[in-house]
């Protein structure tokens, strides 16, 4: 990454932490009192962000699978970066969900004391932790060589971290490299079902709910997977553009290659979405139509039309089709796609909840938390800013000081 951007981003992240800290403080001291969501829209911005990061992590996950399992060489350059990316995303996801819980502290033990395996949330918890462990190890083994070898050169805190992560090793032998490769490969194998299950579970999490017509459909997990691939893929393409050295036009090729995949995913996604809208409207069911209308012409219609379709789809589509050979354009398109993907997540989460499940519920027992009119409030944004800034900081520091972006494993051929 360009040296100029880095400090700017660090400043941005720090500023985000400072600004967001007020929201975090409020949240930690006053529980969920400061938030705008309630009982009829129990999940709001934070869950949307969770899904947003889930999507990003999925893209990164995909790259690691392609690279380390299927051995697709072209992506090798961003392999460790992707692994790390998955970790950072998981970290953000975890924070969003933890803070969304009414009784946060219990999350740390209750899952172990009385887990219920009929709940997809339990499975998500397990899979999430599995993903965390796998990707921590995977990332570590991917960069261990560089850590050990570069440790002596590093000073100060960074040096300390390097030495700590070296676990006393000062030499990185061929055997070690070999076994790390092997480990990464094994982990990649494990991560495949775990990851797929994880991402599928997230879709199923919503799909199993009856009387939630927008979610309660076999289409949901599929849509989830495509959405995850699309946003994640776009992110990876963008990160490739930013992080990978453009030796021999390698980066540009990679970006163009990814751009084509993203274009394909975008088209698929839009087609699925169109299908969902079409089928939804055709049912003639009031609840479904109300939900869909909420997306199309509700108070936040602009999220769909401007955010998602305009900036997030139409412009990228133009760029990806007509400037497919311009890596800058592709990167920009990808940036727009993943950058606006929150709008997709938001429009997934909110509209189903924006419909009263019983006729007349809106007129009885009034309270802001018993309304389907949900607009995220300042606190929710501040907390979100804090979490994202924390994620950004972690990402920046990791990519800056750990041998992630530049790690070059020299291919995985031996291990395959």
């Amino acid at each position: 990454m360009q040296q100029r951007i880095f400090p700017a981003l660090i400043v941005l992240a720090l500023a985000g932490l400072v600004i967001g800290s007020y929201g975090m403080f409020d949240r930690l001291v006053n529980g969920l009192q400061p938030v705008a969501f309630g009982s009829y829209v129990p999940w709001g911005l934070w869950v949307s962000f969770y899904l947003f990061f889930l999507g990003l992590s999925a893209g990164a996950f995909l790259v690691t699978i392609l690279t380390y399992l299927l051995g697709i060489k072209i992506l090798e350059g961003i392999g460790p970066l992707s692994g790390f990316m998955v970790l950072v995303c998981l970290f953000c996801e975890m924070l969003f969900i933890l803070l969304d819980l009414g009784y946060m502290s219990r999350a740390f033990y209750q899952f172990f004391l009385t887990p219920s395996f009929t709940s997809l949330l339990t499975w998500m918890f397990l899979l999430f932790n599995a993903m965390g462990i796998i990707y921590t190890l995977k990332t570590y083994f991917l960069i261990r060589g560089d850590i050990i070898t570069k440790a002596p050169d590093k000073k100060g805190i960074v040096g300390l971290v390097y030495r700590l992560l070296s676990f006393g090793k000062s030499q990185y032998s061929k055997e070690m490299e070999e076994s790390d490769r092997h480990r990464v490969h094994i982990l990649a194998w494990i991560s495949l079902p775990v990851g797929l299950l994880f991402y599928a579970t997230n879709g199923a999490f919503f799909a199993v709910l009856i009387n939630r017509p927008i979610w309660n459909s076999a289409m949901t997990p599929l849509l989830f997977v495509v959405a995850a691939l699309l946003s994640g893929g776009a992110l990876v393409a963008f990160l490739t553009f930013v992080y990978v050295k453009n030796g021999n036009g390698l980066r540009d090729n990679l970006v163009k290659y990814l751009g084509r995949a993203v274009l394909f995913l975008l088209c698929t996604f839009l087609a699925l979405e169109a299908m969902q809208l079409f089928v939804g409207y055709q049912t003639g069911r009031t609840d479904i139509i109300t939900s869909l209308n909420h997306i199309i012409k509700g108070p936040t219609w602009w999220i769909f039309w401007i955010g998602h379709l305009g900036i997030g789809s139409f412009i990228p589509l133009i760029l990806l089709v007509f400037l497919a050979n311009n890596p800058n354009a592709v990167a920009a398109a990808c940036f727009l796609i993943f950058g606006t993907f929150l709008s997709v997540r938001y429009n997934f989460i909110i509209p189903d909840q924006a419909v009263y499940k019983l006729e007349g519920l809106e007129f009885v027992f009034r309270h802001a938390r018993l309304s389907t009119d949900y607009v995220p409030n300042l606190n929710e944004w501040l907390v979100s800013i804090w979490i994202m800034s924390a994620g950004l900081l972690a990402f920046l520091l990791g990519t800056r000081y750990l041998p992630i972006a530049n790690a070059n494993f020299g291919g995985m051929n031996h291990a395959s």
Partner: protein
Amino acid sequence: MSRFLAVEDQMIRMQRDLNRALDGDPKNIKWGMVIDLAKCIGCHACTVACVAENKLPPGVVYRPVLEKETGRYPSVGRQFIPRPCLHCQNPPCTKVCPVKATYKNEAGVVVVDYKRCIGCRYCLVACPYSARTADFGDWYTSGATKSQGVVQGQETAGASYEAMPAAEYGKKWPPRGKGSPVGNARKCHFCVHRLSVRMLPACVTTCIGRATIFGNRNDPNSMVFEMIASARTYQLKGELGTNPAVYYMA
């Protein structure tokens, strides 16, 4: 029509039904409720009685009463539908709870264990009847004046009836804001704390229209058993297969 003089309030009969249930084999108890919409006058007494009994905070409600107008002028009707938790015999809400904090007990009551619940609100989303609300820790008295001494003031008022939660599930909960049930999912529990001391649920005893019938639906002599058999009786959103233990009479 011949001449009638009421000899007993149905409340007394239900009280007898309740006592019989409690004096009998506990395994035979399956609590149930029937709400006769023809008798419901939309008074909202049950709503407020429940709020008062369980000291529910703002935004938490176990039994709202839905209202709607039917017909066209001048043939107009109004319908009132009280909606407690329906205590589904096949509850979609309990299955989704990741930590078994909510479950259907042996007597058919879907309860929440406040000490387990992590507040994920998955069950809220899963309930097709919006019968669950979460406690976000709000106060009714906040928003009122803080002054004290000449007027009672928010703090004194709040301390008098809001700070100390009700003995839901027969338990003493910490002062409001210092732990559960703040942060938890909350819902109607058929007033099990009252049942256990031989009292009918609060919404039942205060029901002005005598529209709410409660008892052991396993007991053929109970009023609730009789009413379930009525041709007017149906289950709300029956097509979902939730099989509620709260029935409605059209």
